[in-house]
């Protein structure tokens, strides 16, 4: 039972990590809170669902949805954020809130307001032992998240573009002077971040068997909590915070019960942790 709950928490935490990663990376270099990243989560879920309904191939629908949403991320940074970068930070923030609302209403117009089911059959079965059942969607979420985060880790730690990203996050102006094409770094950042959010959206759609226009709402708020908890723009901190919140939520909801809705737990945890450690779990500052 406890193992089952821990696994459940890990699954939830994985999804949170993927959802918050794009916005964490963006905050890391531009100091902008990209709320619209949670819109990419809903776009990804819808794209994945429609591709699955029309092709019946889950692999194809993942690939297609990720590519489409990644491209959307590229367009967003190029035509929304880059033009307002030299304005005060409130301008891009409001732009991102506007875009987020636009995405939700666009999805409502195109796909209708009702909740759609997302029942996909995966090419592998559940893992069953005497005490434990891991259903295929859980396996998918844990494996895919681990793979994507490992890929991101490799990119940041060992490649030239990763080094450029880290330098830009530490001192954007000097990185530019050293020859780092900031526009390119930002473009890759959005491409990757929106692709991650799309992946999370599809997986959550499958996990809860539901896709709906405002499905990005709660993730948007939680994403903000996770970015703050993770130390503002620190990818490793965000993963740690996401897994921790996933586990805390699941364990409290499963064992202790809580007088507030489950989704409130993340924010209670945020308040408590910020009271103890105001700089977040892992601060970037020395």
């Amino acid at each position: 039972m406890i193992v089952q709950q821990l696994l459940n928490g890990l699954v939830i935490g994985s999804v949170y990590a993927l959802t918050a990663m794009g916005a964490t990376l963006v905050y890391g270099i531009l100091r902008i809170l990209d709320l619209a990243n949670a819109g990419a989560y809903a776009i990804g879920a819808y794209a994945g669902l429609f591709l699955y309904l029309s092709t019946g191939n889950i692999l194809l629908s993942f690939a297609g949805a990720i590519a489409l949403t990644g491209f959307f991320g590229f367009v967003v940074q190029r035509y929304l954020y880059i033009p307002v970068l030299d304005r005060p930070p409130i301008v891009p923030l409001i732009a991102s809130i506007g875009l987020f609302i636009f995405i939700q209403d666009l999805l409502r117009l195109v796909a209708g307001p009702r909740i759609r089911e997302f029942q996909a059959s995966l090419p592998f079965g559940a893992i069953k032992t005497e005490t434990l059942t891991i259903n295929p969607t859980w396996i998918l979420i844990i494996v895919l998240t681990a793979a994507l985060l490992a890929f991101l880790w490799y990119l940041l730690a060992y490649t030239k573009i990763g080094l450029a990203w880290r330098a830009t996050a530490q001192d954007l102006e000097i990185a530019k002077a050293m020859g780092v094409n900031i526009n390119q770094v930002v473009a890759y950042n959005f491409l990757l971040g929106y692709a991650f959010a799309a992946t999370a959206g599809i997986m959550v759609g499958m996990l809860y068997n539901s896709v709906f226009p405002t499905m990005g709402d709660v993730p948007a708020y939680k994403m903000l909590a996770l970015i703050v908890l993770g130390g503002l723009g620190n990818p490793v901190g965000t993963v740690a915070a996401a897994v921790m919140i996933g586990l805390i939520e699941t364990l409290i909801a499963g064992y202790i019960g809580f007088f507030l809705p489950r989704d409130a737990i993340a924010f209670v945890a945020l308040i408590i942790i910020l009271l103890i450690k105001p700089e977040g779990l892992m601060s970037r500052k020395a």
Partner: protein
Amino acid sequence: MLKLIEIDAFYGKSQALHNVSLDIRAGEFVTILGANGAGKSTIMKCIMGLVEPKAGRIEYEGLDITRRPAWERAALGFGYVPEGRRVFPDLTVEENLKIGGYKLTDTKVLVRNIEKAYDMFPRLKERRRQLAKTMSGGEQQMLAIARALMPEPKLLLIDEISMGLMPIMVNHSLALIKKLHEEGITVLLVEQNANKALKFAQRGYILKTGRITLEDTSSNLICNKEVVEAYLGA
């Protein structure tokens, strides 16, 4: 080699540079002197593309680079040592050097230039895996210079080498820059310490609240009564 022609630059509504013109010829060692807030760093940032002039032109080797993005200028042969060193705090010494050589496409050249930097500053080699923020101020200054030299610049732009350094370290750094100059690099040096700057530079500009008020050879500036009173201390 580098020409600034009637540059006006602003931060928001406040004007930092008024009609500034500079002309630096290949092989020169030029300094800009001026009080705090005169606009020296702003000139450097205009040259590097970090501040965009409202009016005027910047020409480099006959090319108009006024509107070129900063990251394309590194490849033109600029080496920049910014005010306050600005090494990347959470990168290692070696990673800082790699970013300095970001525009080098040939890995062999990159590796060779890192080795050259280590030959020049053995201290950096000892600390190659150390995070830049854990180094002393003097070591960080060495790193900032080494980083600027990574792309084999033709023009070295140095913004206040003396800040926060012991006098002996300042002399040491200036001697190093003189050596680089003798090897053929053109140098533009901004310096608080006018005495020392004029000793090393061949020519100087005096900047007063965003305007160039005087331009002459170092030997003439050292004798100029106004300059002596304002910058060299009586």
